[in-house]
């Protein structure tokens, strides 16, 4: 979008900003400084502010790179995950949790028994993310699913790269797709792939 403005010093230009940055219907006021230096126009511009009607608006970013300690039990889990191994824990009622639970949600007992598991599982419920958001496991449409890993009883939430909602259903067999880089975390699993079409 080009705007014509007079290039005498310190001219100020009004342009329409995109919706996300400043909110619906906002108008951004850029302050442009124009200075001529040996026949070349040097333009520096700063976004001064934006208005919605006669109210001043601005983006407020609240962001931080949290670094979480996870304790001994979950450290073992994330370490094995980074080595492409799946381990769950057994709850007081015998049910196996994957990913592991630190404490049994009913009795509160700290869980200590580990169960090693395969990298395949079954979809117990799913939903279709047609417009993925930045930071989600996949950039193209995918299925969110609760996946019960074979040998476990309580499921894991993750993404299934099914391609289309027609290729996934409750009961579909899926398999882990490991990420190349595995710095630690549930994103060491890139997503799940459907195994042999809809079962």
């Amino acid at each position, binding site marked *: 979008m080009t705007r014509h403005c007079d290039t005498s010093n310190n001219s100020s230009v009004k342009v329409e900003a995109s919706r996300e940055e400043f909110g619906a219907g906002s108008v951004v006021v850029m302050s442009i400084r124009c200075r001529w230096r040996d026949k070349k126009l040097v333009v520096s511009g700063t976004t001064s502010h934006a208005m*919605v009607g006669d109210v001043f608006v601005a983006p407020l970013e609240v962001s931080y790179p949290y670094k979480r300690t996870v304790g001994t039990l979950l450290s073992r889990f994330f370490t094995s995950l980074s080595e492409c191994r799946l381990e769950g824990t057994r709850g007081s009622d015998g049910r196996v949790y994957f990913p592991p639970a630190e404490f049994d949600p009913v009795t509160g007992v700290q869980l200590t028994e580990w169960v090693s598991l395969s990298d395949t599982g079954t979809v117990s419920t799913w939903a279709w*993310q047609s417009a993925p958001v930045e930071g989600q496991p996949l950039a193209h449409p995918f299925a969110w699913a609760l996946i019960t890993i074979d040998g476990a009883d309580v499921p894991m*939430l993750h993404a299934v790269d099914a391609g289309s909602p027609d290729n996934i259903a409750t009961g579909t067999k899926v398999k882990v797709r490991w990420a190349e880089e595995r710095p630690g975390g549930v994103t060491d699993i890139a997503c799940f792939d459907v195994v042999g079409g809809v079962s």
Partner: protein
Amino acid sequence: MALRDIAIVGTAQRPSEVNSTFTSVEILLPVIQQLLDKVGIERSDIGFWCHGSCDYMSGQPFSFVSAVDAIGAWPPIVESHVEADGALALYEAWVKIQTGEVDVALVFSNGKTTSGPIDQILSLQTDPYMVAPLKPGFDALAALQARACLDAGVVTERQMAEVASRSRRDANNNAIAFTKGNESVEELLAMPYTMNPLRAHDCATPVDGCNAVVLAAGDIARRLATRPAWIRGIDHRIDTQRLGARSMTESSSAAIAAQKAGVGKDRIDVAELHAPYTHQELLLRKAMGLSESTHINPSGGALVANPAMAAGLARFAEAAESIFAGSADRVLAHCTSGPMLQQNLVCVMEGE
């Protein structure tokens, strides 16, 4: 010791809007003044103030601290804040009055929901190690629950569309509601999925909003309201949050809270259920054992106006207003929080 009789004696709500350019304080102040004028009391008559809001949802760290500017906390007041819905702030005020320390409380809540990416923000409530890093939206989590209910035959897509159609039609005569409509069930079912199996109308409309109610005990309540809405029972419970560890096709915490609040003791004329998704209203009706004769969400419910951390207290305000108006004698107000109806508060109120 016997519990004191405590009633809601007045309510005030601000019409819902989106992308509000007011500050939270400028939104709250007139609503609280309107409530004080309606009930006919001064700030000095209020023994306890309790505020429900959540920084993450309101778009400003420590937003609840600035909200104190909206209530004229001078000379200093007895005040508390919950990082939760205003309905839980009402529960704290009810407990405070039960101790006998105060007789009148003003409870308020607000949420500038549309100032941020609310669908992503709500998911920051999930497990920080196993779920939140994947960034599922709150609608996605609800859709997983809806799928489980559809698979189990506990709800059908038609029933979900009926809830949406009824709510949008009822919203036509509610100035507070935001989304209104007269679509038939068939028209709604013909709409595309937005988060299969959820369609747009299956998900609540996020709005900026705020509301406030006054609670009073015994004779003071009778003096302040022609027909006080007496709180006969109130209870809240929580379920495990671990997705899939408990059945997604029922809500045991809602069932316990309803039983403890005395829902089953007598008929319920009106139930204002805080269900941000259509299938969740169906689950809640079953969990609380509500009969077909109960009129559900005459206000249109949270589906048509869902201010974060205020939609629960809005249900209390709507239910109490139906007692004041004499259109109902025994009502239920409900509030939920967390993914998949994890935590539920149920309250039964009666007119005399």
